[in-house]
């Protein structure tokens, strides 16, 4: 069992992981780039070490530097956070080869889940509902491709097996466009991801993004910890998340949640993870599994009363989960707003000096951040500067708290998306619950976003 953790990340998630280490009495080792020398995670850690210059590929993505930092600081485990190296199976393998604990699933598991076709096949085998379509690559025979597409039905979507995050995808509405679209997508997959394998799925026109949080220990015990709705997105980036997913029968969520926990047992999953689904016309369709902690994990913490990072570290230490599925409850409702350093209208990034920073407090309000007054948002990394999280007894109560909290928040010196969040929190359609993933980009109810 390890007694120290190196956090291979920066920003709010590094702060979040250090807090969990502090809670568990583990020594926290921060790594940082030159640009982050004054950052909160450096200040809060027990040991901090600079691993390279500002650009991420020379610091937070430099596997050798991180392993060297672990060696010299005597860190016994590595927490990857999210982003950066968190879903890099080769890095997980190297960490374990170095005799350290990677706080996450085994590299082999990450490899399966990183291949969209393999993941879909595993999920179908575990009884997790998937989007109609073949769980293998399309053949080269054009006639066979047309037959398969006909069985799936139009509109359908072609996806490169190695793609993700909205890249390597093409929608096809009519049979006559199919073969050309396939050729282009195959070429894209080859050049962008080194993998020309393409699969086809039914294209959903107005789905919601609903996901299931899971956790599994190394002793075959797996639980699902609740649902989240993350449909408010812009360019595949989540903007506001909530738990539980509104307007879906708890019994239906429980049924799909149980399937996810079952899948974890089948694939020998270990750690926290998220099953992402599209939800349309009352049905769930698996899209992918994230084999790491999510940005939006706090909304599940607020409704379940569990500390996901604490549990994640405990299972990585080999502890058995003491929790039974029937002890996992959902109390009230929670929202999370991602606070980004960006223009609320043009979405242009806005790094720079924060001259005034006032966050709300009081009952039902939680702030996760590395920023504060006088913090200079560097231009090298993503624009997330904090998360404003609220909890209320009901969804309406949580929305009222969200509006009050956003009204109180003030950030000066840089542009942020606070005005967008204020607008969303008062948007009648969003407040009614259950908007689809295109809602924000369509411009909400009032006009252009």
């Amino acid at each position, binding site marked *: 069992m390890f007694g120290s953790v190196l956090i291979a990340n920066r920003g709010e998630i590094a702060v979040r992981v250090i807090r969990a280490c502090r809670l568990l009495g583990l020594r926290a080792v921060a790594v940082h780039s030159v640009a982050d020398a004054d950052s909160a995670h450096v200040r809060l850690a027990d040991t901090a070490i600079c691993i390279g210059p500002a650009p991420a590929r020379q610091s937070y993505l430099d596997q050798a530097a991180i392993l060297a930092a672990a060696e010299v600081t005597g860190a016994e485990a590595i927490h990857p956070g999210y982003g950066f190296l968190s879903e890099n199976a080769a890095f997980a393998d190297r960490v374990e080869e170095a005799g350290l604990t990677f706080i996450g699933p085994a590299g082999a598991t990450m490899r399966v889940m990183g291949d969209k076709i393999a993941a879909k096949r595993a999920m179908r085998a575990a009884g997790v509902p998937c989007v109609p379509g073949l769980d293998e690559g399309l053949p080269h025979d054009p006639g066979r491709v047309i037959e398969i597409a006909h069985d799936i039905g139009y509109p359908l979507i072609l996806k490169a097996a190695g793609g993700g995050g909205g890249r390597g995808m093409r929608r096809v509405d009519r049979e006559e466009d199919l073969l050309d679209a396939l050729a282009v997508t195959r070429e894209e997959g080859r050049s962008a991801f080194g993998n020309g394998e393409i699969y086809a799925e039914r294209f959903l026109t107005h789905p919601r993004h609903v996901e299931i949080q899971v956790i599994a220990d190394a002793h075959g015990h797996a639980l699902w910890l609740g649902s989240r709705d993350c449909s408010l997105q812009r360019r595949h980036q989540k903007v506001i998340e909530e738990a539980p997913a509104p307007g879906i029968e708890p019994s239906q969520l429980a049924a799909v949640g149980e399937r996810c926990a079952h899948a974890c047992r089948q694939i020998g999953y270990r750690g926290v993870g998220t099953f992402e689904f599209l939800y349309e016309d009352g049905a769930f369709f698996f899209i992918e599994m994230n084999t790491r902690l999510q940005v939006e994990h706090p909304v599940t913490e607020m409704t379940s009363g569990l500390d996901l990072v604490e549990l994640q570290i405990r299972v990585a230490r080999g502890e058995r989960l003491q929790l039974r599925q029937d002890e996992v409850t959902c109390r009230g409702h929670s929202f999370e707003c991602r606070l980004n350093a960006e223009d609320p209208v043009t979405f242009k990034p806005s790094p720079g000096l924060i001259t*005034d920073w006032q966050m709300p407090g009081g009952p039902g309000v939680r702030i996760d951040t590395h920023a504060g*007054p006088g913090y200079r948002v560097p231009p090298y*990394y993503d624009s997330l500067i904090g998360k404003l999280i609220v909890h209320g007894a009901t969804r309406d109560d949580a929305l009222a708290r969200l509006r009050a909290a956003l009204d109180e928040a003030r950030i000066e010196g840089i542009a942020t998306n606070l005005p967008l969040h204020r607008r969303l929190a008062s948007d009648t359609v969003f407040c009614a619950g259950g908007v689809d993933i295109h809602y924000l980009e369509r411009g909400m109810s009032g006009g252009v976003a």
Partner: protein
Amino acid sequence: MDPEKIKSLIEAMAASDLAEMEFSEDGWSLRLVRRHEGTVPRQASSLPAARGFARLKPVPKPPDGAAQASEVLSPTFGIVYLGPAPGAPPFVSTGDHVTAGTTICILEAMKVFQEVKAGRHGVIAAVTVATGDEVEAGQVLARFA
């Protein structure tokens, strides 16, 4: 203090589109703030700075009138790239003739890239930054001769 006067101020505020009003007389002071309502976004920049809390100097905004400028200024805080790719020749060098619209450099902020173009024609006397430099909004990137 005249209660009627203050009441009339509150009514005047309600009828206006003011965001904030302050009034003082005879040692009394009154401050009224209008909260944003419904879906009308309130621009953060239009808010008054907090009183009694730490305030630091904001970064100066670059001046307008680039057409007459003797310098090319950075429009934003970001990282400079003088050429289109590592190892590629720079967009401009000292002594180059440029016209309005010639790319001087690229600025990166949070993975978004933005070209900085010359605002007028002229001869470049000096490029005052290097690839990888962090520059402030308003900082000089290049000078005309």
